[in-house]
């Protein structure tokens, strides 16, 4: 377990993913009343973790977020199309709030994993 400390890497990637998602959701909510704005989302962590292969992703636009060191790559994409307002805006506030709670819980979970692994590591090295 502690040869490569992969669990820390994974917790790090998970927290980072939650942070990236939070930023995308904040953008959606800020633009909840902007005409023509299309809601965006990023792929769930389970899908994007380990998606990084031999060739690293290239960011060709400023909207592309990729962090190859963290072991995962996220890319903002259009969210599943729901109902669109007459002015072309596809942000549903309720849905965004739900996703935001999801992101927060994921972040908390990642930090809890990190913390408890740290405690195990400290116990293993004999320090308290």
């Amino acid at each position, binding site marked *: 377990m502690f040869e490569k400390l992969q669990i820390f890497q994974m917790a790090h990637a998970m*927290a*980072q993913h*939650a942070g990236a998602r*939070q930023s995308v959701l*904040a953008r959606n909510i*800020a633009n909840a*009343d902007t005409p023509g704005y299309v809601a965006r989302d990023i792929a769930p962590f389970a899908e994007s973790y380990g998606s990084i292969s031999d060739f690293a992703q290239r960011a060709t636009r400023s909207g592309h977020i990729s962090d190859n060191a963290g072991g995962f790559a996220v890319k903002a994409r259009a969210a599943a199309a729901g109902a669109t307002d007459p002015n072309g805006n596809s942000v549903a506030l309720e849905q965004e709030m739900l996703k935001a709670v999801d992101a927060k819980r994921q*972040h908390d979970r990642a930090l809890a994993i990190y913390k408890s692994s740290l405690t195990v590591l400290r116990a293993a090295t004999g320090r308290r």
Partner: protein
Amino acid sequence: MNDFSDSLSLSSSGLRAQSQRLRHLSENIANSDTPGYRRKTVAFETVINGDTPGAVETGRVRLDKAELEQIYDPSHPMADESGNYDGSNVELVIEIADAREAQRSYEANLKMFDQARQMSSSLMDLLRR
């Protein structure tokens, strides 16, 4: 960390835009009985270039081109030969509905701001131990 500061500034841009909208709405409501007043509307736009791409800002203030209400009152100093004068084209119901929507969006932005702050402070707690 960059994501958090991004979401904080995105949320605050939303807060600013919504409060600007509410300001114009209250201007309209205050002037709903002013003769010849045209209601002001403001459109939201997404910032494409700038510090935080994707933030929201308010565009130019436009005047509603709808017909002014004709009010019949021959004793009014601004009345024409037929006894009518131009009122304002403010519809109170529309303004109130718009204000509700602005409030709802404002609260959502505030919630996101608070959440991003909580997330970054719980990250800081890791260091504190």
